[in-house]
């Protein structure tokens, strides 16, 4: 019988480290009960990557569970609301666009409306027929009103935020309110016990840090899983070729410039640009394949995009983009012995669907809720953790690849390579074959907590103009009636919200002035 798992040591600050610390400490009530202790070792001279600026709606529950006031978070982390993604030029490259909103299609979970939209698909886009969020996002409207309580919504939303302010904000909350210990220092050596479990970490200051469970939030260096345990890395570059990014921050034209409701992803010659509107600035970048594009061309593409979206040339003369290189993929194991990788140390992929922060939340929640009592218990929990996250990564890769394989673009070598059959996983090919005959449905969800539920597949599939040919027997008259009622309901909902919702800028100004109420 091994001793209790009670001391958890997180290596690395940044978003991953502090989100993990917050989730663990809040769940196990570290401030008041000494049974679980959480420490974060953070080195002042290791910079965080800090590009994760888009969250999923799951972040609302994550923050709420940590006991954070949404008003404080919004005020301190330069936060705006994210209601989904807008994909521009992905289909043909000729000014096409579609939305993948966070609000699921009307009728779900009881009624799958997609089969009934197919009959009217030439008249109205899928997203606009089944959801109001795309149209309202196009008008820069906010997902709620000033009288809507914290974390509640009229339209489902996540956040756009300043990643470095967010990490600082969480650090303060974790150390002041949640009883997390903050250790300044740099890990220089990892020590195993005789069973090969990590026993302690030596810091540069000669101090040794002991623990029962170690969480690796060290980013690209992957100190514990990668360097120490030499867990192999599984590259996905053959499928998703983007391995580089240039990122930049640009000011708005004025304090009253509208703030976009969605992340805008615009397909480019050898990748795509992201565009994220925070209250005080825009964050933009170009993710590309270094095989198909060099750094100079990448910067040029990014600058052209920014100029076309209103950034004056003299502003661009003063800024230098930051370059990030990565190998897309993930560790073969995320939890080895008593070390768990969370965040970039576990894997990294192009941020096309902003999967980075949500994976951190899900990983930390699973560790926290399934926290093993001892090593025997841990062996089982870690196996299950690895199965779960291997499956999740496979689904992420498939879902991201979906955006490319559906494209009709063939204007560059990059697009030809990205949409080619031999770069497409069999699992995705099979789904695409299936969806020739039926729409994505609840039968496509294999796990209870699917990262991308079938509704997301519907938005992308039909946003990109995929053809599903149902058989006549799939369409039931009483369901046609129900679908018409739902289409109408969506329209009514739209005109109500259009009247009631303030613009993003207006609401954020009001939150700064009055705050959101908890009830």
């Amino acid at each position, binding site marked *: 019988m091994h001793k209790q798992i009670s001391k958890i040591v997180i290596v690395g600050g940044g978003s991953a480290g502090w989100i993990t610390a917050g989730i663990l400490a809040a769940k196990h009530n570290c401030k008041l009960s000494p049974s679980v202790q959480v420490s974060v070792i953070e080195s002042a001279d290791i910079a965080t990557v800090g590009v994760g600026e888009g969250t999923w709606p799951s972040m609302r529950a994550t923050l709420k569970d940590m006991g954070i006031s949404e008003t404080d978070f919004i005020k301190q982390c330069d936060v705006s609301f994210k209601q989904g993604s807008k994909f521009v030029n992905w289909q043909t490259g000729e000014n096409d666009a579609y939305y993948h909103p966070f609000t699921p299609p009307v009728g779900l979970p009881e009624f799958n409306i997609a089969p009934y939209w197919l009959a009217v698909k030439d008249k109205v886009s899928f997203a606009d027929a089944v959801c109001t969020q795309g149209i309202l996002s196009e008008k820069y409207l906010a997902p709620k*009103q*000033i*009288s*809507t309580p914290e974390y509640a919504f009229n339209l489902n939303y996540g956040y756009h935020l300043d990643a470095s302010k967010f990490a600082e904000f969480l650090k303060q909350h974790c150390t002041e309110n949640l009883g997390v210990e903050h250790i300044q220092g740099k890990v220089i050596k990892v020590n195993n016990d005789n069973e090969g479990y990590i026993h302690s970490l030596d810091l540069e200051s000669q101090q040794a840090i002991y623990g029962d469970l170690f969480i690796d939030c060290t980013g690209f260096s992957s100190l514990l899983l990668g360097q120490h345990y030499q867990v192999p890395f599984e590259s996905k570059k053959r499928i998703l070729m983007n391995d580089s990014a240039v990122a930049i921050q640009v000011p708005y034209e004025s304090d009253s410039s509208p703030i976009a409701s969605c992340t805008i992803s615009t397909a480019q010659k050898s990748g795509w640009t992201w565009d994220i509107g925070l209250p005080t600035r825009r964050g933009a970048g170009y993710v590309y394949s270094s095989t198909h594009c060099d750094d100079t061309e990448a910067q040029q593409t990014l600058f052209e995009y920014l100029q076309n979206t209103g950034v004056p040339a003299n502003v661009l003369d003063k800024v230098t983009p930051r370059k990030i290189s990565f190998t897309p993929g993930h560790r073969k194991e995320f939890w080895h012995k008593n070390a768990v990788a969370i965040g970039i140390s576990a894997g990294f992929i192009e941020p096309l669907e902003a999967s980075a922060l949500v994976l951190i939340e899900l990983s930390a929640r699973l560790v926290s809720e399934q926290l093993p009592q001892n090593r025997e218990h841990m062996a089982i929990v870690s196996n299950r953790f690895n199965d779960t996250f291997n499956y999740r990564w496979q689904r992420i890769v498939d879902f991201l690849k979906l955006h490319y394989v559906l494209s009709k673009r063939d204007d560059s070598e990059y697009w030809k390579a990205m949409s080619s059959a031999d770069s497409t996983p069999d699992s995705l090919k099979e789904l695409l074959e299936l969806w020739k005959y039926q729409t994505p449905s609840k039968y496509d969800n294999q796990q209870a907590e699917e990262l991308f539920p079938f509704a997301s597949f519907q938005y992308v599939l039909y946003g990109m103009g995929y053809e599903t040919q149902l058989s006549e027997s799939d369409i039931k008259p009483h369901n046609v009636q129900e679908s018409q009622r739902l289409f109408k309901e969506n329209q009514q909902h739209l005109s109500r919200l259009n009247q009631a919702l303030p613009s993003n800028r207006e609401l954020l100004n*009001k939150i700064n*002035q*009055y*705050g*959101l*109420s*908890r*009830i």
Partner: protein
Amino acid sequence: MTNTVLLNSIDHKDVRVVTSFGEQYGDNVWYTATFPLEFRSIQAHYPIFFQKDPNTGGFYPVAMTGFQESENLFLEGDKWNAGYVPLMIKRQPFFIGKQDKLEEGKTTEHRVIHIDLDSPRISDSNGQELFVEFGASSPFLTEMADMLETIHHGMETNQAFVQSLLKYDLIESFTLDIELNDGSQHNMIGFYTIQEDNLRTLDKDALAELHQAGFLESAYMMLASQSNLRNLIDLKNKRNGL
């Protein structure tokens, strides 16, 4: 539409204000804003709940006079059938305005009376006169000025009142379900009330703090005012001939 201007004895010397009630004067409101200073009178006749200001999201207390938009169950023709009419109704068509005044090199803010000249209460032949000989205020206008002053202080207390209640988790949202004599069910959302359990279990420091500010009394008056819901339902049944 409103056309609110600063009241003065020259431009408005012949203006009269109608003080009777009626739908035509916009009295068909289903709730009206109030404040702790007025609770003692209000709670004798109307249920008091909280609403949210759509402009700021902040809570403020309201006296209920109906169950739906444009329904004032106390209004019957030109009569208001209650022993007390809320000040926010009685002050019409006047508003409190603010004016900066430069005195000895310093700018200070003064409260002034504004009047809505588009209000249907404005008349040149009927109602109360505002000014008497030589531009002096009429007794009616003096009374109105006092009332506006009371409202102004009352509204200021609201903020402190709500802050104190929020601090101790004493506000909760609720849905009001009413059933009329014909068995029809109606529910109203968007109202908030005092969280009774938390109020009863306040520790002695919190109690002392609320008591000193006078808010403990106000909170209990709000609870007591809920018994007026029965009367409001009776009025509704009566109006529907039930």
